[in-house]
């Protein structure tokens, strides 16, 4: 009988990247591959995970670390057949998730160039939280079902 043990490399990702947005696509690709290995829905692979993770990474790089390549971003992903847990840690002082989340769909905000990142992250993930733990951490959770 074949043991139903998922290889660790299909479950977890733990990597530090320099604060450079050019690294984002490669990280997203690695996380999506792990979700695909666990048969996450196509929409999760094409929309929810890539967009929400890109937002978390770009926030960490550009806002948390102020685009300073000397600073790093620590990314952890833990994927199993029930849920994906992502943690993106930067070297910033953090922010108030509630206060910083705007509604970009209101008439006064619709034509703004910015202000959609946190909104999308929270609409595309099942749970988003921010906390400080030796750095500023954003944790995203998406259930497979």
């Amino acid at each position, binding site marked *: 009988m074949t043991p139903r043990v998922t290889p660790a490399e299909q479950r977890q990702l733990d990597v530090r990247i320099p604060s450079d*947005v*050019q690294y*984002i*696509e490669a990280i997203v690709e690695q996380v999506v591959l792990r979700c695909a290995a666990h048969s996450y829905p196509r*929409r999760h692979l*094409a*929309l929810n995970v*890539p*967009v929400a993770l*890109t*937002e978390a990474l*770009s926030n960490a790089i*550009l806002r948390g670390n102020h685009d300073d390549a000397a600073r790093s971003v620590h990314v952890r992903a833990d994927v199993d057949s029930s849920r994906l847990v992502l943690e993106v840690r930067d070297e910033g002082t953090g922010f108030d998730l509630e206060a910083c989340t705007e509604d*970009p*769909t209101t008439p006064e905000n*619709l*034509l*703004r*160039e*910015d*202000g*959609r*990142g946190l*909104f*999308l992250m929270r*609409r595309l993930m099942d749970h988003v939280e921010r906390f400080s733990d030796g750095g500023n951490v954003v944790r995203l959770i998406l259930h497979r079902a």
Partner: protein
Amino acid sequence: MSFSVTTRGDVCIVEVEGQLIVGNRQELKQKILDELDKGTRKVLVDFARTGYIDSSGLGVLVSLAKKMREMGGDLRLANLNDDLQTLFELTKLDTLFQISETRERALENF
């Protein structure tokens, strides 16, 4: 990821291949601004070969649409897949842009 620019009549067609995200949005913006400098006033962005778009990519499209309208022009979109359509609906940007199912349909009355 890359952007290709072609012309059909007086419409400049920009095809986005790959992602439109924070790392390459300025490249798209500059390509379209260059076309505006040449006198182009009609731009169609074709997403048939696009993966995903983040908030920065959406922001650039909004910025360009505003600029083109100020100049008497128009920026339209075509070939959004279901996921991209959902993204535009979530952000209500589907109300801001004229979005066509195909490139040909977008060009019909541009």
